[in-house]
């Protein structure tokens, strides 16, 4: 009996590495601390009522934001572990298999559990406010999306201390990810972590598409919509078309591993290339899914801080929609070297280059907006300015990679690593951070400290170039990706070591930048400049017309829109002395909080964990629980209520210090 328990524990818990024992201790201590604080301050019911069961898009956005910043920390630590291991030849810091796990989780977490939720955070925090809407189209589904994402992310992260992390790369190519080559549970964690959160992402795509199409304030025609909302529309369309492919791909890989099917195996007729095609049919649009909202953010930020209307609004809209279509015709550039015919390579090479054109149009539009504008260099603008050169270089190296014959040289080299980090950090991370700084006062009611923010910005920005410029050179010098160490001969004779050392220094500079941001946030919570106007930057769009933070119903009165930059128009009218028409408050229809999304997601987690370990006694009750939650929702009819007029009056008076 004792022997059985010992054997079970030794396979169930990951052992043998001091880093993992450290993580175990950290997890236990943090959990105890959270439970203690919640109990001591009697905050359990508050947590349940205000956060866990909430269907308010703004609160859901805040939860996405917190989760994604935590994941940025975890993915960032992974990056620093890798860079430490590669800093010098023959480092003995990480074992080969541990290194594989670290680069796998770094990639997966950064794209799916950091970039995606940070993007959804901004969707939730901003889109309904920009549209002049009271909510998203499906508030219940929105809450479900968040909890599915969180449970998926937690399941994935659990693999670090329980069972073992996936180690077949961030896209889990077979046959490496098949049972024959990865017999442990790591790949199962990968499949179920992503599958569960992926369902949530798909639902978010549908939710925001309908929100944007149907919930806009009266008078806001599509072509009067703020550009960030346009970018969300474009991104949502791509989510709707790309994520079902991911769902199927992961399901088929699971069938291979679980029921012994032969979709992607090497034997009995399976075809691993089928997986590679499928995963990139999702994966390539995915990178545009995360970058397009950043383009929307830059458009808002540049216009606001240049005190000018955005240059080329229509071309901005057109280019975003074009990108969302062309992104589906570029997937095969990820495997130019895998033996497709020349004609296939040419098609994908050209479509990949073509996508650079609308992107270039956007960069010029931002520059023309700034031209002769009254520019204020505030936090959001700083990140936007940092983005432009970074993204231009990243775009140029992308076009270099798109040249199919040349790709035979760059393929799987550090040149590629440098390129995609340049577009993903320069485009997505800088973009979302610009968005975070821009909308922070709207969400929390105070600005983030400027001085600490500048330190963070320069650490990130300089660190970025120091980290990745050497990697372009390393790519040309023959260093391949997924390499866990190199000998002193290649290190010193071929000159890899000095460049790797410099690159590692750059990675740590970015890490310091992140620490400055944590400091900046914790400092600003206490001492940041409070925003009493609701419009701290002199904004142009509707979200700045209401108090910060916004009341739960967003707009006491539905705004009527006549032009683009609707709030700017109102401010101009006021300056001219035109008074707004008197308004009458009406009761506001709101959705009720619900515990079902949280409970259903917990059941998904249970089912996922059961499937990971092949424990049907756990997986089946989990799925039954999911079905039960769906039925419970179907049978609940009492799902909404009205906020009476006097309560709205009281709230508004408290927020604005006057009556409406």
């Amino acid at each position: 009996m004792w022997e059985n328990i010992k054997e079970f524990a030794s396979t169930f818990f990951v052992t043998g590495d001091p880093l993992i024992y450290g993580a175990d201790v950290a997890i236990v201590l943090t959990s105890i601390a959270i439970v203690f604080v919640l109990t001591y301050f009697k905050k359990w019911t508050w947590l349940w009522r205000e956060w866990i069961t909430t269907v308010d898009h703004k609160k859901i956005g805040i939860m996405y934001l917190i989760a994604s910043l935590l994941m940025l920390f975890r993915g960032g630590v992974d990056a620093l572990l890798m860079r430490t291991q590669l800093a010098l030849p023959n480092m003995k810091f990480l074992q080969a298999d541990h290194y594989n796990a670290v680069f796998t989780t770094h990639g997966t977490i950064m794209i799916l559990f950091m970039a995606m939720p940070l993007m959804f955070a901004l969707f939730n925090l901003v889109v309904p406010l920009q549209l002049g809407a009271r909510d998203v189209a499906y508030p219940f589904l929105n809450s479900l999306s968040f909890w599915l994402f969180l449970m998926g992310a937690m399941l994935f992260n659990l693999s670090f201390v329980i069972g073992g992390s996936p180690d077949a790369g961030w896209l889990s190519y077979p046959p490496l990810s098949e049972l024959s080559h990865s017999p442990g549970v790591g790949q199962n964690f990968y499949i179920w972590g992503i599958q569960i959160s992926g369902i949530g992402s798909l639902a978010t795509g549908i939710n925001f598409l309908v929100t944007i199409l149907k919930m806009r304030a009266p008078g806001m025609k599509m072509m009067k919509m703020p550009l960030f909302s346009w970018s969300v529309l474009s991104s949502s369309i791509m989510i709707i078309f790309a994520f079902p492919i991911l769902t199927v791909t992961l399901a088929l890989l699971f069938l291979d591993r679980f029921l012994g099917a032969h979709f992607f195996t090497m034997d009995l007729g399976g075809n691993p290339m089928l997986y590679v095609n499928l995963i990139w049919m999702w994966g390539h649009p995915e990178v545009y899914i995360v970058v397009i909202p950043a383009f929307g953010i830059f458009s808002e930020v540049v216009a606001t801080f240049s005190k000018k209307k955005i240059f080329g609004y229509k071309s901005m809209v057109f280019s975003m929609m074009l990108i969302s279509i062309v992104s589906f015709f570029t997937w095969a550039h990820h495997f130019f070297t895998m033996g497709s015919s020349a004609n296939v390579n040419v098609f994908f090479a050209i479509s990949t280059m073509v996508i650079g054109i609308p992107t270039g149009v956007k960069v010029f539009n931002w520059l023309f907006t700034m031209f002769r504008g009254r520019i204020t260099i505030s936090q959001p603008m700083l990140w936007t300015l940092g983005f432009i050169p970074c993204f231009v270089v990243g775009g140029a190296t992308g076009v270099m990679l798109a040249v199919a014959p040349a790709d035979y040289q760059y393929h799987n080299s550090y040149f590629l690593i440098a390129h995609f980090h340049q577009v993903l950090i320069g485009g997505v991370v800088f973009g979302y951070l610009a968005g975070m700084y821009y909308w922070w006062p709207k969400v929390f009611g105070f600005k983030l400290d400027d001085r600490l923010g500048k330190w963070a910005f320069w650490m990130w920005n300089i660190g970025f170039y120091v980290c990745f410029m050497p990697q372009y050179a390393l790519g040309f010098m023959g260093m391949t990706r997924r390499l866990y160490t190199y000998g002193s001969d290649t290190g010193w004779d071929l000159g890899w070591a000095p460049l790797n050392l410099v690159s590692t220094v750059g990675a740590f500079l970015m890490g310091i930048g992140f620490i400055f941001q944590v400091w900046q946030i914790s400092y600003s919570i206490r001492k940041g400049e409070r925003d009493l106007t609701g419009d701290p930057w002199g904004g142009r769009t509707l979200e700045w017309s209401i108090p910060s933070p916004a009341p739960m119903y967003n707009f006491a009165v539905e705004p009527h829109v006549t032009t683009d930059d609707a709030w700017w128009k109102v401010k101009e009218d006021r300056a001219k002395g035109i008074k707004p028409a008197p308004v009458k408050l009406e009761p506001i229809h709101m959705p009720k909080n619900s515990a079902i999304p949280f409970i259903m997601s917990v059941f998904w987690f249970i089912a996922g964990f059961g499937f990971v370990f092949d424990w049907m006694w756990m997986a089946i009750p989990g799925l039954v629980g999911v079905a039960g939650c769906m039925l419970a929702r179907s049978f609940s009819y009492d799902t909404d209520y009205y906020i009476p007029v006097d309560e709205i009056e009281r709230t508004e008076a408290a927020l604005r210090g006057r009556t409406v």
Partner: protein
Amino acid sequence: MAHATTEHSHAHEAHESHESLKVLGFWIFIVTDILIFGTLFACYAVLHTHTNGGPGAKELFEMPGVIAETFILLTSSFTSGLAMLALHKGKVKQLIAWLAVTAVLGAAFIGLELHEFVVLVEEGHKISSNAFLSAFYTLVGTHGLHVMIGLVWMIALMIQLSRRGITEVTTRKVTNLSLYWHFLDVIWIFVFTVVYLMGVM
């Protein structure tokens, strides 16, 4: 009192627009489901010749059973259409009756499909036998799973209809279910054509 009535009319309006919003969302959900089936069809198209020397579609499929399944499912789509007519006429008993007929037909379809699978597996043609069978079971099985989910949903709706009658909310729910059921029918026509007809030809 005047206040109460305005609030009520307002409530009515908000509800109605909310229900139509949910139908639109369901249409988009169906788009994503079409993509799921599209991907599965693509995999089947790639792998349907990969039998690894084992028997292919021509040797395995028994058409009479499949044709019976097809007729049953098409009929169920028709009866779900009759249910919609009853809904629009406001006849709740008729509506529940037609939904019940649809559910019985759906269950018969599932029964026949399971029988087909059991016979194949007993003959030794399993999902793990080769890539062709993996793709076959996954594609046809995913459709079958959808039908089963539809059945549970249908029963849940029949209970709700009998309790609450025809309201805005139940109307929307039956509308979505009907959309879903027709959609499954369309998918089956593709399964029938691509997997079975083209398989045995």
